């Protein structure tokens, strides 16, 4: 299950999910709109360091260590971004763009690190409230987002299961031999999840 939440009682943990989401949206936009220059890259890095250090994620350097974990988790995205940019742009633009993308992702991650999914679900539901006039059911839309988010690791597990089953039977890896059983298992899981949601009182 996709859970980045780290239990804690810092100020960011205590902040209501709605205002916190707006604050982090503003921060992400701010770093995204920086120009492609060396100082912008430094500003994106400094903003990430400052926000993680001040987020109250734990004693001492806990915030900085968490930032390190987040950046490590993004290593492949960083590598692909910088290499592809270097093919077409100069080094300054490539580094600055990569720094801005990385900063935006790690700043957005703070929201899920410090907020329980239930609180996010409630905030999304409240945020979508005005769309009732357009006949959108906020409860259902928020649930859809939550279920989509939490199903990602399940699909990853199903993919691993398919690969294991193929290896056990000596089958060669191939898109068709992977995709068909994976789709069947994913659809079966969707059916079961639908039943489970119905069984748990979800309309």
């Amino acid at each position, binding site marked *: 299950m996709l859970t980045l939440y780290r239990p804690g009682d810092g100020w960011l943990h205590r902040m209501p999910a709605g205002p916190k989401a707006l604050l982090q949206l503003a921060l992400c936009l701010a770093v995204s709109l920086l120009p492609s220059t060396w100082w912008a890259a430094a500003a994106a890095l400094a903003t990430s360091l400052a926000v993680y250090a001040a987020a109250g994620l734990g004693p001492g350097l806990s915030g900085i260590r968490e930032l390190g974990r987040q950046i490590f988790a993004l290593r492949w995205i960083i590598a692909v971004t910088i290499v592809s940019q270097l093919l077409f742009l100069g080094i300054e633009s490539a580094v600055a763009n990569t720094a801005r993308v990385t900063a935006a992702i790690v700043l957005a991650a703070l929201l899920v690190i410090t907020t329980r999914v239930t609180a996010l679900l409630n905030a999304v539901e409240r945020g979508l409230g005005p769309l009732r006039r357009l006949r959108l059911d906020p409860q259902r839309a928020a649930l859809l987002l*939550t279920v989509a988010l939490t199903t990602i*690791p399940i699909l990853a*597990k199903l993919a691993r299961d398919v690969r294991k089953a193929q290896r056990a039977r000596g089958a060669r890896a191939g898109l068709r031999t992977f995709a068909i059983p994976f789709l069947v298992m994913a659809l079966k899981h969707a059916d079961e*999840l639908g039943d489970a949601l119905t069984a748990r009182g979800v309309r």
Partner: protein
Amino acid sequence: MTASPGRDDSDRPTDGIHLDRVDVRLGEADVLREVSVELDARTTAVIGENGSGKSTFARLLGGLVPRTGGELSILGLDPATQAAELRRRIALVFSNPDAQIVMPTVAEDVAFSLRADRLRAAELDERVAAALDRFGLTSLADRSSHDLSGGQKQLLALCGAFVRRPRLVIADEPTAYLDARNARRVADHLFTDTGHRLILVTHDLALAERCESAVLFDSGRIATFGTPAEVIGRYQAALRC
């Protein structure tokens, strides 16, 4: 046929499960045919071979598949017209706990079951804490739901079902993926009387023996209904043929 063989009925609620010539057709297949039974016992085992209609019977009672004929009453309600009311009183537990877990942490997943009730935060926390304590999951409250062991996941699924205080629990092979120790723990929780009725679909005949009554399905029909000893005896005799 009337349930509750071998037990005094005086302390039970009168609104059991009543089926009168119920049919279920899925696509072109008649999965259940003219099923008539009255289940008034607190615990009923449903046994039979694969494809005999057991799971469809459980899904029918849980409101997941509609009947295509006959009359059906569950806890005094008709699932065709009172589905929402019925779902508030029923909990289902399936064999695969992965498909039942929705939220990323244990406590949040249990709380998810109460989401539709719109409880105050304090009451919600209290209900969740009590349920976690009952199922021995308190220490795992902030753990990732899908990082749990198979046994812990099924306990979480049970916890999510029982936190709603259901009057009827329908469990479809809830111990199928579990080792003996975890199967016993899950079964003990299912059989602990919290004022609920239990419909237990199982291939585990030892588990079926713990019920007060049993139903044997064969080719979409009820072949035998009675005490577990009688029904299991008939089933085993049929298997030897």
